């Protein structure tokens, strides 16, 4: 089987992290976002993945060559010269996707969940329609576009954008499987799959919804990235508790790369991911944070709800909170307070940021 991942553009919503590396290569829970998806796809029997990208990056190319080797699958790049929306990239990669005549997967690259690709393929074959999408339940449907479908078959009746009265609590989770026939519906021009293609398919009775079990998160923004991390670690606790860190000073779900070093008298967790080569000095308190590769957190600091970028250095007695995001190689001087700071790469911070703002 084949799959298309809608990688898209510069990942501006996840800046400042995406100023240093392409979004698919940003580590989510110590593994590049794209790897979560590639591994799940391979496990479902996918042997050829097409990445729809709107800008080329040598780093991404190199990483994909490496993953081809490691996973034993083929990875192609489909490069849009102009942004083609969420449907246009399918038309652009038409030849690659339709080659074997089999149904193919399509997914948004910002989504993290327990990818149900094998179940989705089974569901798709059973109903025999042209396309299937995964839906997930939300608490506040009025914020999203919701999917209204038949309870027993899952056949989608209609889509309602930001409903003002309750019609459904299921939203599009950004994971699809289509028969090659869908490609007849899509022109090579900027097109939205959600707004232009799906409503037509639903009208034809060709689109079905399968409900996702377990967690789901769009991790395209720092705040949601952290929420998604909490969900992922909780799922890891249920399925692979041995992968989580334990020991004195570890609270709740904590993921620590084996090459990271954690000092004495620290309290880490709940919901913390510590990347490769990270050094956490003595007496540090971290909760609900991702600390990326090579960063150093100096002694007696206190961090909550932060993303610490690659190779950053956070000084002694620093307090960081409220979705503070440090880009790559940021230095935070001793004793500072960062509240909701968004710091661009390679900055040295010498003054506290008491209210949320961007540090250029």
């Amino acid at each position: 089987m084949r799959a298309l991942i809608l990688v898209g553009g510069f990942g501006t919503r996840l800046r400042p992290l995406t100023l240093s590396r392409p979004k698919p290569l940003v580590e989510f829970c110590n593994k590049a976002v794209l790897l979560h998806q590639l591994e799940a796809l391979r496990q479902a029997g996918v042997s050829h993945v097409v990445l729809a990208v709107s800008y080329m990056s040598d780093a991404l190319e190199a990483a994909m060559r490496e993953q081809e080797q490691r996973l034993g699958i083929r990875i192609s790049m489909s490069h849009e010269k102009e942004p083609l929306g969420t449907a246009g990239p399918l038309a652009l990669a038409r030849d690659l996707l339709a080659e074997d005549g089999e149904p193919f997967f399509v997914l948004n690259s910002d989504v993290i969940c327990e990818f149900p690709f094998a179940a989705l393929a089974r569901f798709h074959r059973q109903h025999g329609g042209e396309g299937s999408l995964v839906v997930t339940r939300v608490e506040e449907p009025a914020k999203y576009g919701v999917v209204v479908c038949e309870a027993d078959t899952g056949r989608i009746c209609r889509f309602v954008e930001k409903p003002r009265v309750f019609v459904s609590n299921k939203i599009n989770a950004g994971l699809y499987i289509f028969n090659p026939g869908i490609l007849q519906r899509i022109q090579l021009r900027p097109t939205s799959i959600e707004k232009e293609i799906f409503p037509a398919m639903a009208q034809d009775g060709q689109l079905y919804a399968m409900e996702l079990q377990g967690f789901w998160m769009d991790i395209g923004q720092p705040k949601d990235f952290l929420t998604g991390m909490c969900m992922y670690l909780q799922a890891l606790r249920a399925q692979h508790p041995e992968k989580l860190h334990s020991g004195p000073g570890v609270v709740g779900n904590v993921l620590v790369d084996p090459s990271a070093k954690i000092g004495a008298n620290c309290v880490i967790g709940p919901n913390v991911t510590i990347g490769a080569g990270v050094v956490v000095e003595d007496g540090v308190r971290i909760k609900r944070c991702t600390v990326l590769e090579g960063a150093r957190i100096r002694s007696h600091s206190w961090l909550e709800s932060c993303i610490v970028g690659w190779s950053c250095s956070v000084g002694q007695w620093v307090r960081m909170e409220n979705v503070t995001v440090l880009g790559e190689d940021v230095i935070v001087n001793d004793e500072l307070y960062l509240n909701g700071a968004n710091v661009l790469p390679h900055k040295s911070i010498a003054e506290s940021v008491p209210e949320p703002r961007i540090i250029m």
Partner: protein
Amino acid sequence: MPLKAVILIGGPQKGTRFRPLSFEVPKPLFPVAGVPMVQHHIEACAKVPGMKEILLMGFYQPNEALSRFLVSAQQEFKVPIRYLQEYAALGTGGGIYHFRDQILSGGAEAFFVLNADVCSEFPLQEMLEFRQQHGDVHSFVILGTTANRTQALNYGCIVANAGTQEVQHYVEKPSTFVSEIINCGIYLFTPAIFQHIGEVFQRNQQELALEESSNGWQRAEVIRLEQDVFTALAGSGKLYVYKTDGFWSQIKSAGSAIYASRLYLNQYSKSHPERLAQNKPGGPVIRGNVYIHPTASIDSTAVLGPNVSIGEGVTVGAGVRVRESIVLHGASLHDHTCVLNTIVGWDSTIGRWARVEGTPSDPNPNDPYAKIDSETLFRDGRLTPSITILGCSVTIPAEVVILNSIVLPHKELSRSYKNQIIL
């Protein structure tokens, strides 16, 4: 020459800008650089040869804290020290006039008057020598210092003859610029000053008698040295100013106590090196000038300074950081806390990994004549960022941040606060 000194310590109705700290202890006893504010005055007075007696004057009810302090100060400085209580707030001149016999008893030929709410090098000996040098041993001397043109308006302004330093003009808190030389609140008088205060008293009495419906609270005995006496003496050849370049600051607000502490701690390197903490093996890391009371218990991994005073019986845990702060007796700072620009009240507790931080109100460091602004609490309806003050017995939970806030006594907080007064 027999000398005396009078230290004006005010009373409980004064010093409201020092709340909530002045709820617990009379402001003059608030520790600055580890010792009560007025002890710096007393020490300076006791050093002057011929000092027969030091009189604290104010309208506090006699209280245990004050009595205990007087006893220990007498023992330490080997000079009689008494407290004279005014029956009402009589102003800076009314009090000394009321107690003139007490001041002059024992044949004092001259006496100093010092306001308690200033911090200074107290160049008292220099003031005496200055009076000797300029020739008229019966003249009065005001200690003056240079301020910048804007801030001078908040003080008593002095215009003096450039050669003789005779005061030609004196005005208290003018609305337009008069002079950069300001009154430090420290004076040297001879007994003749009482004639001049007496004249004001007589005039007040006459004026009050003329007013038919005197509203009761106005008293002839209330006399202000600055407006009532100095203004009249200016240009009469009796009043001189001695200008000092030494450090000087008012201590009006709690924020200025941290600044005053820094000035005194700097002075300790010369005057009291034994009071400054040193880096020792097995001891905490000391940066700059730090005072630690001998009974305080400090973990060896703590980092203190610059400008930190740690009071009696204080406990400082592992990995604690304190900078530009005063920690009062009995307080407890748990492991990994960070305390910056803060006064931690008596018996307060700060939970581990909490951060308690204020905004310093220091004078502009690039202006050698800048003074600390006696800031208003609110500006444009918002609390002005200032140092953080925890009143006595305040409990701060672990891991929260308290920023630019004032916490009134006996509060147990349960979350973070920023820019607030917490009642």
